[in-house]
């Protein structure tokens, strides 16, 4: 009986460690718990977490760098929200609202493809494109906006979006 219990504990420990073994800290308030990958690569401004057949990449949104010809400094949170929300879009200058609409169309924003929820004080906005098999997750915090690119199946996208947790 004791041996059986030990074996069960070892099995559960291994299962837990292979399911969610790693933590990516995004800020003082937010983290992502993710399955151990095959490799992790650090680019000049991004972190790529790579699995055999899918990956996710984290980038802190630089308002001057989202589009090279548009400086969104001070507007970046409203702009990201406006990609997902027509009412928020209406509050933007017309030229920027047109860009937000175009970006929404490119991402495939629609009620059935998007999700929006809070993690503590952080606002999470997600969209998944089933045709291209990739998704976007934006996390809007007080001090920064994070963009997570998912390249893979919807399950992978959902798994990462629901692994965003408070620290």
């Amino acid at each position, binding site marked *: 009986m004791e041996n059986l219990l030990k074996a069960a504990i070892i099995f559960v420990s291994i299962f837990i460690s292979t399911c969610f073994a790693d933590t990516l800290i995004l800020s003082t308030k937010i983290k992502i718990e993710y399955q151990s990958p095959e490799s992790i*690569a650090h*680019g*000049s*401004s*991004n972190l*790529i977490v*790579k699995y055999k057949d899918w*990956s996710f*990449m984290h980038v802190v949104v630089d308002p001057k*760098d*989202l*589009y*090279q*010809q*548009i400086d969104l400094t001070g507007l970046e949170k409203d702009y990201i929200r406006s990609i997902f929300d027509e009412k928020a879009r209406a509050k933007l200058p017309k030229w920027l609202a047109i*860009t937000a609409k*175009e*970006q929404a*169309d*490119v*991402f495939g924003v629609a009620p059935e493809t998007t999700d929006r929820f809070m993690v503590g004080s952080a606002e999470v906005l997600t969209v998944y494109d089933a045709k*291209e098999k*990739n998704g*976007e997750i934006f996390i809007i915090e007080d001090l920064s906006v994070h963009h997570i*690119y998912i*390249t893979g199946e919807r399950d992978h996208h959902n798994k990462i979006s629901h692994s965003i947790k408070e620290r």
Partner: protein
Amino acid sequence: MDLHERQDLKDFLVTLYGGTANKWPMNEQIFNLTYKLVAESGLCSGMMDFVPRPMPPGASPMKYLAKQVRGIFLRTIRQNKKQYISCIKTVALKKRRYFDLAAMGY
């Protein structure tokens, strides 16, 4: 790709994605991604009129296009980069992941 082609490609990508593209290798994979980004964006009417289409599914643009056509493509996107970038910027944001993956050898 020869030196001029690599420079044209880098010039376009730096204008599109900023200084980070300076660190990307200008190789076949990055060329193919650029070609697909421009060809598939569908947002710039007339942009691809000089390039033969459609391309066979799965074909590598680098291998499929004649060297002369490839050179014209690269010169054209470089010379008209500001005009092109304004109409592909939203598609470019979505496709950014593929460039970053390629740049890291994935």
